[in-house]
């Protein structure tokens, strides 16, 4: 309840404002505009700030929403309330079509693509006959409930702000859920999420559609607020402005969108009304100041105003503690575990002319700790990537529990009970340890985006978090559960990755240099944990450079050099193997 308190206070304040005696009607108009812009910016927060997908084209989705209702209400006399779902649907469908193309683009291609179709759609709006070309469509009926018609800014105000508050609530619910964590992990690249079963392209498309639907809602409200629609507010300039709003407010924060909208709309108003006095009657001066402010802001405060405000707060919002008594059902397993878990037969990986893994074969059996060692560049991490489906092998065969996984994507491999950690830690630094670890249990939860938005996922969510908390306790990081992952030392972050991998309920754990950066005592604790896991029925395949650690822990060792397996055997065999000595210490040893 305490978490909802700020929202309730904000809602009450917004509800009271129009009734303050003597409030200038013009202020209400401003607040209407702020609400409309906040809706679009909220979508951008999810899309750009959280998901890492930058779009300059959101104004076009407002256009879809606005024109849908404009055409249907004026030409066909459909009731505005009936056009609401249709407006959202049309924006959503447009987002699916554009999104299928757009979200697959990497890096800077994505924002560029959005600029291009943003402009293309603007010209489409302004040239189509049935949309009224440049003049647009006027005479759109107002929203009405019974006989009450929302004709003036003071009445539609309520429709707009109810939409804003509901959207904020739903968006925050979504972010604080299983799907939300998958979305928040997008920004750090797709490999980590996919290793735990996240369907990255689908998650990206989801936020893209979500943002478009919010923009469509804003467009629908705009059409009934202005009672007219023309192409200008849906052009590239407007799209840029929405992104500006999100960046000013703080692109990663839902309330940043509202704050940013407030700052930008009011600033624009002030600039428009006062600049002409200062500089004489020139028009468009505000865009100059606007552009300059944008650049200055990026140089001085690239994270936006909201996080800055929050850091000034005297208290921290309390975090919830998961109830660890809740049990998450175990992952569905094959009825009996075969003696060979992982079978690699002449796996080969070539990058152009370079052979990174050269016909390597080895097995990992049940209840066994196998170490993969060799100099840097020997192909150890590449082997991991081949097993987990991040890379596809050039030739050879890899099977897990008798199932071939040569061409299986990471999401399928993890379903077989293979989970991993990464050589270069892949955690989301601005998520807590608990949230990061809970991503590991992604496949063991079932709640989707819609049920999360309406809080129907709480039972499922509580079980996921309980499991995550248990695994954090198990690796000995219980005290850090609420800290941001990025604030831990690198060694601790590696341990967090192990907890995340354990959340899969795996049969085989792949650990890439788990002991790097750990102190002596921590290494011993890690070794004890891994032994305990083995004795509990799990197998471990690890890459490690600390020979003391490896020799002490591993049941068997596989040695790679230049992508080729040069030895395999018990630690005692490996220590005395002349080839291994040569590969490590040079010819003189």
């Amino acid at each position, binding site marked *: 309840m305490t978490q909802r308190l700020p929202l309730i206070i904000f809602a009450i304040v917004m509800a009271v404002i129009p009734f303050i005696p003597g409030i200038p009607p013009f202020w209400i108009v401003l607040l209407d505009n702020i609400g409309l812009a906040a809706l679009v910016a909220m979508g951008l927060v999810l899309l750009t700030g959280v998901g890492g997908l930058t779009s300059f084209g959101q104004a076009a989705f407002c256009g879809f929403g606005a024109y849908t209702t404009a055409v249907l209400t004026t030409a066909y006399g459909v009731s505005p309330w009936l056009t609401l779902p249709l407006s959202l649907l049309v924006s959503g469908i447009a987002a699916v079509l554009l999104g299928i193309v757009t979200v697959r683009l990497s890096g800077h291609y994505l924002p560029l693509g959005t600029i291009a179709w943003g402009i293309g759609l603007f010209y489409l709006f302004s040239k189509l006959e049935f949309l009224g070309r440049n003049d647009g469509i006027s005479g759109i009926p107002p929203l009405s409930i019974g006989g009450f018609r929302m004709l003036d800014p003071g009445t539609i105000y309520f429709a707009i702000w109810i939409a804003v508050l509901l959207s904020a609530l739903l968006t925050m619910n979504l972010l604080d859920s299983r799907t939300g964590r998958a979305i928040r992990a997008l920004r750090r690249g797709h490999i980590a999420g996919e290793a735990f079963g996240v369907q990255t392209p689908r998650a990206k498309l989801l936020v893209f559609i979500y943002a478009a639907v919010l923009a469509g809602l804003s467009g629908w409200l705009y059409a009934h607020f202005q009672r007219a629609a023309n192409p200008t507010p849906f052009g590239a300039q407007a799209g840029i402005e929405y992104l500006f709003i999100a960046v000013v407010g703080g692109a990663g924060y839902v309330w940043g969108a509202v704050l940013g909208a407030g700052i930008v709309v009011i600033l624009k108003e002030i600039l428009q009304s006062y600049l002409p006095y200062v500089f004489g009657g020139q028009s468009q001066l505000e865009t100059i100041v606007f552009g300059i402010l944008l650049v200055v802001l990026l140089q001085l405060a690239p994270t936006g105003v909201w996080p800055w405000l929050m850091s000034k707060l005297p208290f921290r919002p309390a975090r919830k503690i998961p109830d660890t008594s809740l049990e998450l059902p175990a992952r569905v397993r094959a009825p009996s575990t075969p003696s060979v878990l992982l079978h690699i037969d002449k796996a080969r990986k070539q990058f152009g002319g370079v052979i990174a893994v050269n016909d390597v074969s080895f097995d990992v059996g049940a209840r066994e700790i196998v170490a993969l060692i060799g100099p840097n560049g020997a192909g150890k991490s590449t082997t991991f990537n081949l097993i987990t489906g991040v890379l596809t092998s050039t030739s050879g065969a890899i099977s897990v529990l008798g199932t071939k996984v040569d061409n299986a994507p990471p999401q399928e491999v993890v379903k077989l009970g293979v989970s991993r950690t990464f050589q270069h830690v892949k955690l989301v630094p601005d998520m807590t340890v608990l949230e990061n670890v809970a991503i590991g249990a992604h496949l063991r939860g079932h709640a989707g985006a819609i049920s999360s938005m309406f809080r129907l996922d709480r039972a499922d969510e509580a079980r996921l978090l309980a499991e995550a908390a248990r695994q954090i306790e198990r690796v000995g990081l219980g005290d850090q559960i609420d800290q941001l992952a990025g604030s831990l030392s690198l060694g601790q972050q590696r341990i967090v990755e192990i907890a995340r991998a354990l959340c899969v309920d795996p049969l085989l754990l792949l650990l890439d240099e788990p002991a790097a950066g750990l102190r002596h005592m921590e290494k011993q604790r890690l070794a004890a944990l891994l032994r305990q896991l083995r004795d509990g029925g799990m197998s471990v395949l690890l890459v490690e450079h600390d020979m*003391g650690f490896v020799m002490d822990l591993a049941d068997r060792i596989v040695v790679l050099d230049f992508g080729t397996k040069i030895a395999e055997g018990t630690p005692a065999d490996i220590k005395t193997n002349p080839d291994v000595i040569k590969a490590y*210490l*040079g010819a003189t040893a």
Partner: protein
Amino acid sequence: MSALLKVSDVHVAYGKVEAVRSVSLEVADNEIVTIIGANGAGKTTLLNAIMGILPLTGSAAFAGADMASLDIEDRVAVGLSLVPEHRELFGTMNVEDNLLLGAFRIPKAIAARSFERVYTLFPRLKERRKQLAGTLSGGEQQMLAMGRALMGAPKLLMLDEPSLGLAPIIVADIFRTIGELRAAGVSVLLVEQNAQAALKIADRAYVMELGEFVLSGPASDIATNARVAASYLGFTHEGESAI
């Protein structure tokens, strides 16, 4: 002996995590100094900070002058050079252009002599001078990276893991060349995981663990230190005692 490089009480942090803690070191003229230590000990971080790639607190002076206000490019100009762990070659340009750019900060006439010197040290590079850097083998790339650094006629060459991922036979070659540099009047600060090879050619050594220097002294002393033998010279050194 005057110190060419003098680093005192240096700390380097990534956000809240300190990767290098209170490190002091010196390299004199015509000296080969090595820093050995495990993966993640902070060796690369230290070199990058000395080069100006990462910010440090504490002081770093080169040839008697403080470097606090110098950018990477200024440090290159005063005679400090780094061959980084990932070599950072210009992959889509040929060997000759890579070397030419190594002499970006020095006059043309001197650059011509540098070319000769580098080609004498690494005859393989001369054979392959029209080949694109990205298509060279790992060993040749390491030679090119060192050659490019030497083109700028540095006083101190810092090498980060030059043996990384190379065949033992090439490693021997690279280390022989490092030894020859001293004769040419270039000091070397060498970071290596291959402790045995590094200690063999170095005059002095520092041992780094978890961001701190835990041991320092003449390389021959370090090589016979029991603790170093156990931790870094590998499990085969003197039988089973390492584990």
